[in-house]
């Protein structure tokens, strides 16, 4: 039996306290009036000097996606296209006498000029938006910031936990011989599903019926063409994206996850004392069903909870992209918990080959994630349709560029290079190092999925964001390791346990 060491418990609680302080700080320092926003923007300008224009530029791009301004923006969309094509504008005559170097410059100056003049203009008359309206808009974004921070964190840990459970079910459905020694670890990681989903549900209720924040812009639109907040996109999406339906669906997803987890874990524990294989066989069936049901719920969950933030945009690959991202994080967390428990001597039956296999999955699913990322990105980049590029505009060329490119490097380049060698995958500290990069990368990935639509181009990754991350990390550690103390760390009665114990590569 594992006992939750007081050191780790203190750490978890400390994380939660520091995190809560950070979240509180985030809410307290949120600007309340447009005056404060003005000041905040000024400070940014002083800070970043020349980048101020670029910031402005991003706003236009996001507002299409965020739909906060609730008017059609053909102007804006056109702009995005032009921006993405900037170097194209260079004429062929120039080509003849200049080589690459000058060319790049040419492309850049165009882009810059465009950013400063073209867009400034647009903000002035293109939208017919006064300065006051612009500040109002920025205020909404600024108010969303602490909410976004906690939403990203709570969703990350919930989905990590759910995906770790899916991984567990895949092992059961495949009757995998190598992994039964890790089953109790995976069950422990999945324990966060219950508190995690309650928190997320509370957040969603607060955001919709409680009007606690402005993160989901579609909630503030109308399909009445005469209304001030008329949104053409909602005419076709209203039947799906409406608050009651959205909330009911959210509850259904969560109930399905909690329900399946409850019964599968009950069976797993029953097998410890059972005299026959009935619970084991029942779990096989339940796992197969859960994998199918989960994929359906995950599909709509990603549409509802994440893609609806940019409700003018659509991508059918998106749910699988989210799944790939969270699945690789889930496997990484399983590896972390396993390595931690083993280093403390609680898992004497886990050998290097088990770590090796987990690391192989981390490697494989990092590449799988890249594949889905690129499949989604390239089609939209190539097609260059205004409705679609609104999503990638703030991320690829807007102010989120460093995060977007950074997470791509962390989630693809690092894992593929670091985890390629099979000997390295057997070294626990090395796996932890690679895992930290992967988890950071996917956390940023989720942040970049959410933030452009909710906080706009003036993003920061500061105290509120770290606070939210720490709070939910602490909660996650607390819940998971408490759950691990409940049952012996090696399940009994699994017919494949012996095979798993002697598993070697």
């Amino acid at each position, binding site marked *: 039996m594992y006992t939750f060491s007081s050191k780790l418990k203190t750490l978890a609680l400390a994380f939660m306290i520091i995190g809560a302080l950070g979240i509180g700080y985030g809410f307290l320092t949120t600007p309340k009036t447009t005056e404060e926003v003005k000041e905040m923007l000024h400070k940014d300008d002083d800070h970043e000097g020349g980048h101020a224009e670029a910031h402005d530029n991003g706003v236009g791009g996001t507002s299409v996606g965020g739909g906060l301004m609730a008017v059609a923006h053909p102007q804006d969309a056109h702009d995005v296209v032009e921006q993405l*094509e900037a*170097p*194209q504008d260079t004429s062929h005559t120039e080509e003849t006498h200049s080589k690459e170097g000058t060319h790049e410059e040419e*492309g850049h100056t165009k882009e810059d000029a465009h950013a400063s003049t073209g867009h400034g203009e647009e903000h002035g008359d293109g939208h017919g938006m006064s300065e006051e309206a612009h500040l109002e808009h920025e205020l909404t974004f600024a108010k969303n910031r602490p909410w976004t921070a906690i939403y990203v964190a709570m969703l990350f840990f919930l989905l990590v936990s759910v995906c770790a459970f899916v991984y567990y079910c895949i092992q059961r459905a495949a009757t995998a011989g190598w992994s039964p020694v890790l089953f109790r670890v995976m069950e422990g990681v999945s324990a966060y599903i219950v508190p995690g989903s309650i928190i997320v549900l509370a957040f969603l209720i607060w955001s919709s019926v409680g009007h606690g924040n402005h993160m989901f812009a579609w909630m503030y639109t109308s399909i009445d063409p005469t209304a001030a907040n008329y949104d053409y996109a909602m005419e076709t999406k209203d039947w799906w994206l409406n608050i009651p339906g959205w909330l009911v669906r959210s509850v259904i997803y969560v109930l399905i996850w909690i329900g399946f987890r409850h019964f599968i874990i009950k069976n797993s524990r029953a097998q410890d004392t059972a005299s026959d294989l009935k619970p084991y066989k029942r779990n096989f069936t339940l796992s197969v069903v859960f994998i199918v049901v989960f994929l359906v719920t995950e599909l709509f969950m990603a549409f509802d909870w994440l893609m609806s933030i940019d409700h003018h945009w659509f991508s059918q690959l998106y749910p699988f992209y989210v799944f790939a991202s969270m699945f690789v994080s889930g496997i990484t967390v399983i590896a972390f918990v396993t390595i931690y428990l083993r280093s403390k001597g609680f898992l004497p039956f886990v050998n290097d080959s088990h770590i090796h296999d987990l690391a192989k999955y981390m490697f494989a699913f990092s590449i799988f994630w890249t594949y889905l990322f*690129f499949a989604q990105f*390239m089609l939209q980049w*190539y097609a*260059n349709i205004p409705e679609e590029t609104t999503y990638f505009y703030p991320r690829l060329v807007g102010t989120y560029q460093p995060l977007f490119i950074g997470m791509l490097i962390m989630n693809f380049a690092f894992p593929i290079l670091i985890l390629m060698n*099979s000997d390295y995958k057997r070294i626990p500290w090395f796996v932890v190092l690679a895992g930290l990069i992967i988890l950071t990368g996917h956390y940023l990935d989720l942040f970049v999925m959410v933030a452009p639509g909710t906080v706009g181009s003036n993003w920061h990754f500061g105290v509120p964001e770290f606070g939210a991350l720490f709070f939910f990390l602490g909660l996650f550690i607390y819940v998971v390791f408490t759950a691990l103390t409940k049952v012996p760390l090696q399940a009994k009665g699994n017919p494949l346990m012996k095979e798993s114990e002697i598993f070697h590569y």
Partner: protein
Amino acid sequence: MSSKVIHAIYDDDDVLMNAVKEVRAAHHHIEEVYTPFPVHGLDKAMGLEPTRMGITAFMFGLTGLGFAVWFLNYIMIDNWPQNIGGKPSFTFYHNMPAFVPILFEMTVFFAAHLMVITFYLRSKIWPFRKAENPDPRTTDDKFLMEVAVDGNEDEVASLLKRTGAIEINVKETH
């Protein structure tokens, strides 16, 4: 050098694996094992050095990637920039996303083909080469272990018999 070898024939890969371990534990030199299919873990049991094919694969892949970068840059950027769907075509990095599938395919193509060629060269298999296989049954359903003997024929033979060999032949070499 020994002038004689023993050919022990097995009909099961698990038995063979255990036999290899026992023979090695008894400090006899296994010259070679012929099997009809790759037996997982046999190389480790025989104490062979790990293969370096993985390293060559990585280098071939890099070669393919490098070649593809040069190739696409020459075709699509330097030599004749084409306007395809309005995509930027004057710098490599602006148009890079469009090239990724080709970069990937070239990497795989180079790695795969060059690895096959490397494998053939390393195994000394080329056209018109005579098979070295001592017993044609090893291409069907039998496993053959070749053990070098140096005056201790009977001892080795009885050991092999004990490990489950179904047939033992002593052969003169060269």
